């Protein structure tokens, strides 16, 4: 029974990291939405949510870039984001970023339309996935912002658990930050290195062949460290992984 509240069209906010390093994950995200019958639009003018500037204390710069995003998603549609970190920035911090400016009302309205991808798939679309892939053991890495700013903890795992041939192993240190933190990886490089090393070890100890994540910052961090350390497991963004399983690749 079609849900009258179910949107017919959505915007997709790709994120700047996906744009440059993981475009396939962005495409997979849009494909997943399109195959549910939605019209998916990727506004060409979008760039970055502005989080790097905000987090480094440069609010004017963050605001300037955020304003471009407010301009680029004019319609009333949901804005689906394949990153809990960027979604969190736009959902929880845009209103305060524009407080006291003429764009405040716009920012509030914009932030109300923001969804993290798995959140949207589970809560709004209630997708059902059919697993056509071969058996594989995976573990999940939930990004800190996804879990703690967007409240996205179980939704991705709920999607992964739908896949019959996928064994999801829990990582006891799942809640621990992987150490990326944007500029932190450079400013406190040694601490960041210690954190990602511990995270990689904890993933290896799960015995999983792949670590799946909803955030490419974390993914880049973890897989980069795993690769350098010669670890056997690889990493994948959840959108790519889900699409692959649906197509039996």
């Amino acid at each position, binding site marked *: 029974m079609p849900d009258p509240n179910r949107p017919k069209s959505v915007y997709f906010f790709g994120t700047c990291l996906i744009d*440059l390093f993981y475009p396939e994950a962005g495409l997979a995200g849009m494909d997943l939405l399109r195959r549910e019958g939605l019209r998916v639009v990727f506004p060409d003018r979008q760039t970055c949510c502005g989080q790097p500037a905000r987090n480094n204390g440069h609010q004017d710069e963050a605001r300037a870039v955020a304003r471009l995003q407010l301009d680029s998603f004019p319609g009333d549609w949901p804005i689906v984001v394949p990153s809990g970190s960027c979604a969190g920035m736009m959902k929880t911090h845009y209103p305060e970023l524009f407080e006291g400016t003429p764009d405040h009302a716009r920012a509030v309205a914009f932030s109300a339309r923001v969804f993290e991808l798995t959140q949207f798939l589970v809560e709004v679309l209630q997708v059902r996935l059919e697993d056509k892939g071969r058996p594989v053991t995976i573990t999940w890495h939930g990004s800190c*912002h996804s879990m703690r700013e967007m409240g996205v903890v179980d939704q991705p795992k709920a999607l992964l658990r739908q896949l019959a041939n996928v064994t999801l192993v829990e990582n006891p240190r799942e809640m621990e930050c992987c150490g990326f933190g944007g500029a932190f990886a450079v400013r406190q490089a040694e601490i960041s290195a210690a954190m990602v090393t511990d995270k990689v070890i904890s993933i290896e100890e799960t015995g999983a062949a792949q670590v799946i994540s909803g955030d490419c910052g974390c993914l880049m961090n973890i897989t980069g460290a795993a690769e350098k350390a010669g670890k056997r497991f690889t990493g994948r963004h959840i959108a790519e992984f889900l699409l692959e399983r649906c197509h039996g690749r």
Partner: protein
Amino acid sequence: MAADARISNFGAKAHIALNDPKLRANFRRAMDGLMSKRAAQFADPDEWTALRARGAAIRARALAQLPELLERLEANCTANGIQVHWAETTQEANAVVLGILQAAGAKRVIKGKSMVTEEMHLNAHLEGNGIEAVESDLGEYIIQLAGEAPSHIVMPCIHKNKAEIAELFADKIAGLAYTENVDELTAAARAALRGRFADADAGISGVNFAVAETGTLVLIENEGNGRLSTTLPPLHIAVTGIEKVLEKLADVAPLLSLLPRSATGQPVTTYVNMISSPRKPGEKDGPRAVHLVLLDSGRSRVYGDVELSDTLRCIRCAACMNHCPVYTRVGGHTYTFTYPGPIGKILTPQLEGLDCAGDQPHASTLCRACADVCPVEIPIPDLLVRLRTEAVKPSAAAAVKGGGSGKSRAESLGWAGWTLMYGHPLAYRLATWGMALVGNWLPASAPMLKQWTSVRTKPKFAARTLHQLAREKGYGHE
């Protein structure tokens, strides 16, 4: 204004800590234990939500009425016979305490655990004036023997393992044979300190909560040294920051349900000591004189900014540092100043200045683990970002000492360039197209990339950007 000339050097100190496997193991084990104990206490999410909302409101209420409540506290304490003193700086507070001790002819002081007196470097000041101050809390006693500063605000010697403590005791306690048996070590400390309580001319303590309604000082502890220090000596001096005041006695109940469970995963501390006056006529024990010293030391400036004054809600439970992935790896001494961990990263720069501790707000990935467990809902990550902002662009009201000290020409230029690229669609598409073409030629040793590649492979630029691919796949149009 600051008593000391120390500067935070987080990276350098972290380097030392990260390369100390024993220290890392000690902290990892300790924090894991404290996290799981706390989780067991707060297994009911609804109870946690309601309780911390109550705790946050109680603290926010008290802060909203701070000047009035401090006056009420003073009036009620005074009516009860407690003498109240005010100090703007730690130097002033040290002078006040010294003055009280000298007036009483006190030469030996026994101390209960107090982070505020650490902030004041009180022990050193007293020693310098010929007054011996012995720490009676076991953890503080241990680090006093070792000549170290506390590395955690609740468990001061958490960075030491049993063997290290055994060696310390065998070395410093006369007549004690080497033992790693915890009961024997504890008994040795008890014996060594027993006589000190009885001989002391004065006891000095901190205060967990100061209740304005009744003029009551609430001190919580497990060992009994706090009660002994504040009951046996003829003089008791309590020191507190001005932010610790509560409006009502009833407010103690929810906070008491939050603090021990958050700190060590205990339902309650062994002793909750509520002091309202010195020994009254007819009473047979207790100090003849009780003094309360109210210390400002930068707190009134923190109070001046409504957003930042949330920092002052802190009830010093240490849950934030127990859950902090950064603290766990580097330990408390990396933070240089009195308060480590997430609370330290927001409090220290405000008390000492961003010019002295500007690197601390940046020593965080903003993972929010601290905010999740703070029993009084301090939005620590948001305050970290606020402080990062004050460091490069101070607010009009100059809310934070040392604001603007983090501004650098290079960084400003960098962000201006970033804004040009990310704030303009055409510039962005041009730049990303260029990066897709040549980005992978960047050597791993390039600045910034060098830190990344020390433990990771280089990020790989995709051949085509998502912008390009999206257009091709028909996602580009409304």
